């Protein structure tokens, strides 16, 4: 049986980070794929609550044209 591929988790303790904000584009961009999709919780390393905040922040940033819907 082939060993299971383990994908790199981008960070792991983001809950200690400063408040997630839609204006911090450089920070939010780290959690997007090259196509502009939001990374899953498994890859972003966020807890449930923080992942929801991340999702909300990214969607707000997309609304005001700071981040792309599709890159």
């Amino acid at each position, binding site marked *: 049986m082939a060993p299971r591929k383990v994908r790199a988790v981008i960070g792991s303790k983001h809950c200690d980070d400063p408040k997630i904000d839609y*204006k911090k584009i450089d920070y939010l961009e780290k959690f997007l794929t090259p196509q502009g999709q939001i990374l899953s919780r498994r890859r972003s390393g966020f807890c449930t609550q923080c992942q929801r905040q991340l999702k909300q922040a990214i969607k*707000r940033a997309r609304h*005001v*044209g700071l981040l792309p819907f599709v890159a």
Partner: protein
Amino acid sequence: MYEAMVLLDNDVVREGYEAAKSTLVDTLQKYEATVHACRRWDERRLSYPIRRKNRATYFISYFEMPGDKIPSFRRELEFNENVLRYLLLAVDGLPEGEVDQAKAEEGADFSVPPPPEDDAIEMDEEAGETSDLDTDDDDMILDDKED
């Protein structure tokens, strides 16, 4: 306390920064808002075109407003042709340093550089690409002739 991020058309900002800013402040005051801070956040390229514009000036303001005035305020922003897009959020409080940054705008030595042309970067990119393609085509034609 509310936070409003408003994208203004660069053409309006080019005509006069203070006039552009006052359109936003006047709209807020029209709906009985107490404006704590209103400042230019940034001028940047949009990630995707909005109303056929590729660049916009971002204004951010923090204010208090009676809740029943919010729908009218939203409608006013939507009808305003100079406002490309807006984001209105309820926030817990005024972020630190926001008032100082807003006051810095009111200083005599504050000046805003005129926004660049809407398609300035795109034109350069396109020109670069086309010139490269042209040279490739020439090479191809030469190759064909040699053959």
